[in-house]
């Protein structure tokens, strides 16, 4: 047997060569363009490849109002994904449980379908993931969850059938909430589309991508605000308005209060709208456009007053009203509080208010044939005739704009459009106007939706509106005694552009200079959601429980009130500890405003004393009561019943930690998994048996030899 292996026999060598050759051929045939993505290098990397999370997605959470629920609640576990368009094609929507992948252009149709009674789709849909196109592409022509006549219940006229917002779907104040819905960011959408395409390519059969959606809400079982506040599973949506009047008080004379009874003109603007998707609350056209125009006008008017040097005959009280998307909560609270004769907003009592100017949506005024932008003045009944001076002030301001703006009076409308001004309708002696970019129908195709963002906003339109409003307000304040002063257009322009950048972008967002100088904020994207109010603070002027945006607006109004030629001069004002501390402002009529000076180091104090009549005003319903029990715990309640209260009193449900979350991963079908398990078990059992037999056989052989 020694020669058996004297060398590899030629046959074996030939076989080996053939094997190597065929292996190389095989490899070259199969090697296609390989990817840069390698095999996962560790269990963590593998897990990231398998499970996709969506940290940037915005969820829809559960809100409640006096007459029902709104928003989303529920969980979905291991539910397969399917495109909405494909689902509707099969059986008109009926079928097994599914999480729908909805392209933005199908979103209005999808939500309307979900909300309609007896929809076959609604029964089987366990959730929805909304994907976005790049740069706002792929949006539907309109998407407005608001009513066709928003705030109809508060209108001062009876024509409730008028369609201010014809594309409105009426989905904000629903009865029952929806299954979990998430809006993905643009980057997440790109990657996610590949997963949905995989499912579609596989014909929606396993192995396919499934989703785990968790939107567990503690108030899911309560039907409305009354029940959930009673069971302490929710908290009221709060928010604050910020108000300031011009000209600011001269510190020495404030204690003397010389001009206590001077006439006030109230200037209103809404801060933020409501939104089905919690984190995307903006309302660029519906609220921010008017707010930016009003705030920029405030600065320009303050500068104009300072330059003029003489106090005007009418005071202007600016109020940036919060929580207006939640049943005009802020303005209704404001009007209710003013009903108390001694209560004043920015130093103006209700008896002093002779007129209200509201700066409504002004971001979509398109140029007409002559290149001028058209703005409309919506007057309350008889207001225009009774206040000719105000009308002429606006007309003159439009003339001053050198053809950039033209003013019109709307024709064919039943009265004022949905606005904060509606809250004043109980006080028929208060007259007012709403300054807006639309006549008979709201120009905004995305009212009260997340699509009302920077893409739906024209900065030039806002600037021209701000110019017009500022010019008109100066004339109104001096009641026609115009010394021919001009509004500082450059300042106005830079403020409008700056505020728009801060509030509508994520870069620089709230980290912009304008915000950071007068407020502390770590946010990038501005959040206009008013937030909940957890307890009734003893001092509602304390900035600690206010949102970043509201604190910024307060600081902005405080520092611009004096109309300084160079804002940096605020740094030269007497220092103080903000918000409170040892060093206070010595004179009455001064407030301590946050000021971030250019000089670094702890030597400079963080606030400066500025003369301003600026204040915070709560924006939640006066029907809400906060009582502290014997155990020291406080509880919110509502003073009144559903039938008697007109206020909508919105609340937000509590939710557990790690909620809401969305996860997507691929799963095999149950048949495959069971088969795999049985095959593996069978394989193992066979091997154990075979090895046992082999072992016994070897032992037997050993015994034989």
């Amino acid at each position: 047997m020694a020669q058996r292996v004297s060398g590899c026999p030629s046959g074996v060598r030939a076989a080996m060569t053939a094997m190597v050759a065929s292996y190389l051929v095989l490899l070259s045939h199969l090697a296609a363009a390989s990817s840069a993505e390698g095999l996962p290098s560790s269990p963590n990397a593998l897990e990231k490849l398998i499970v996709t999370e969506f940290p940037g997605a915005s969820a829809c959470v559960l809100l409640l109002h006096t007459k029902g629920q709104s928003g989303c609640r529920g969980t979905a576990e291991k539910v397969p994904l399917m495109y909405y368009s494909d689902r509707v094609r099969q059986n008109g929507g009926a079928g097994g449980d599914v999480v729908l992948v909805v392209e933005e252009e199908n979103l209005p149709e999808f939500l309307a379908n979900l909300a309609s009674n007896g929809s076959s789709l609604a029964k089987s849909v366990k959730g929805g993931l909304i994907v976005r196109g790049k740069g706002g592409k792929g949006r539907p022509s309109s998407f407005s969850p608001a009513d066709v006549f928003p705030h109809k219940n508060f209108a001062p006229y009876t024509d409730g059938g008028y369609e201010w917002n014809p594309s409105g779907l009426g989905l904000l104040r629903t009865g029952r909430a929806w299954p979990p819905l998430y809006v993905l960011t643009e980057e997440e959408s790109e990657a996610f589309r590949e997963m949905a395409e995989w499912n579609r390519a596989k014909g929606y059969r396993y192995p396919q991508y499934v989703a785990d959606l968790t939107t567990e809400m503690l108030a899911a079982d309560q039907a409305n605000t009354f029940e959930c506040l009673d069971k302490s599973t929710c908290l009221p949506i709060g928010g604050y308005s910020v108000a300031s009047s011009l000209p600011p008080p001269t510190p020495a004379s404030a204690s003397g209060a010389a001009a206590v009874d001077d006439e006030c003109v109230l200037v209103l603007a809404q801060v933020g709208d409501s939104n089905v998707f919690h984190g995307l609350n903006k309302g660029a056209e519906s609220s921010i456009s008017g707010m930016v125009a009003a705030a920029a006008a405030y600065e320009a008017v303050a500068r104009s007053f300072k330059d003029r040097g003489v106090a005007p005959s009418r005071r202007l009280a600016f109020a940036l009203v919060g929580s207006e998307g939640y049943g005009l909560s802020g303005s209704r609270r404001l009007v209710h509080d003013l009903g108390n004769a001694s209560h004043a907003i920015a130093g103006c009592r209700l008896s002093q208010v002779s007129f209200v100017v509201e700066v409504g949506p002004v971001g979509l005024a398109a140029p007409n044939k002559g290149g001028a932008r058209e703005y409309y003045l919506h007057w309350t009944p008889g207001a225009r005739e009774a206040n000719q001076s105000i009308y002429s002030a606006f007309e003159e301001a439009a003339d001053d704009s050198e053809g950039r703006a033209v003013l019109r009076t709307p024709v064919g409308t039943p009265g004022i459009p949905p606005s904060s001004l509606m809250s004043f309708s109980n006080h028929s002696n208060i007259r007012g106007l709403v300054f807006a970019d639309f006549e008979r129908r709201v120009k905004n195709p995305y009212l009260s939706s997340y699509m009302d963002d920077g893409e739906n906003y024209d900065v030039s339109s806002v600037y021209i509106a701000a110019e017009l409003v500022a010019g008109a307000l100066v004339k109104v304040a001096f009641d026609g005694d115009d010394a021919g002063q001009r509004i500082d257009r450059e300042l106005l322009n830079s403020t409008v552009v700056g505020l728009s950048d801060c509030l509508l972008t994520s870069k620089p967002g709230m980290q912009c200079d304008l915000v950071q100088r007068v407020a502390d904020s770590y946010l990038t994207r501005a959040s206009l959601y008013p937030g909940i109010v957890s307890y009734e603070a003893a001092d509602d002027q304390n900035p600690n429980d206010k949102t970043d945006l509201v604190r910024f607006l307060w600081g902005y109004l405080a520092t611009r009130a004096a109309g300084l030629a160079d804002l940096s001069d605020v740094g030269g004002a007497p220092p103080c500890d903000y918000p409170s501390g040892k060093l206070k402002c010595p004179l009455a009529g001064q407030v301590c405003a946050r000021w971030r000076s250019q000089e670094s180091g702890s030597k400079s104090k963080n606030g400066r004393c500025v003369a301003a009549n600026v204040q915070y005003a709560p924006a939640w319903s006066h029907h809400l009561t906060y009582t502290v029990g014997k155990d020291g715990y406080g509880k919110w309640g509502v003073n009144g019943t559903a039938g008697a209260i007109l206020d909508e009193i919105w609340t937000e449900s509590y939710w557990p930690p790690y909620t809401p979350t969305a996860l997507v991963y691929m799963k095999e079908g149950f048949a495959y998994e069971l088969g795999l398990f049985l095959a593996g078990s069978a394989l193992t059992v066979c091997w154990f048996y075979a090895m046992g037999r082999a072992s016994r056989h070897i032992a037997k052989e050993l015994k034989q030899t």
Partner: protein
Amino acid sequence: MGFLACAGYTLVGAGPPAAIFYEFIVSSPFVLLVSLASAFFWVTVLLANSVVWRSLSWMTHQGQTEALRVLPLISFFATEELLRPMVFRQTKRATAALERRAVALRHPRLTKLERVRIFLGIGAGQGVAHSCLFFLNTVVTSYRGTYYNQDTCPQMPYFLVAAISTCAMFMVLSFAMVLTSVVFESAQAGPTMSTSRGGDLRKLLPCALHAAAVLISFLNMAKGGCLVSSVLNALLVGAVVWMAARLVRDLARGVQ
């Protein structure tokens, strides 16, 4: 249902190895000890290799990612093969020492098959090291969901490919070490054995077997290669079992 899938993949990848381990290694405490020591040794070897490659990863260039994926695997293979003669010699010395002790205590000497079993233990330890580092640590993730590598293998789940590959590698490594004990021994044995040239060539047999398994795993990097590699792995297991059966039969009959 994630549990069923995870258990299934583990059974496919680690079930047959467990059978071998249980039947031939666990039954003898000494072999078990040797096997576990071997596992620790080979884990250390593989980890040391990984550390070197991770520290060199800063040298990655865009176009060379293909080569860089393959190089660490080749280095694992090369290190293990270069260490094989050393492992053989050390094991021989250890078993010789054990035998002297046994004889001193008037116990019977080790039979040929018992010696082979010790080497099987070493090889199985090597297989366990591979399983732990390349399969068992990731198969737990199959509980969360499945994964198909879209570019190279959309036909089979990653975990299934890994399971079959691991099972085959275990078998190959275990048997390769057994083969080592035979072919390396025969090169040193007396004139009744083969000529030195044939002996040297035969020393490469374990290396060739290991190389075959590694080359099959390279097929996974090609588009659709995973199907081919899984089939080849299954065939390789069959071939290894057949070779093992023949070897054991020859040894039991006292034939070289």
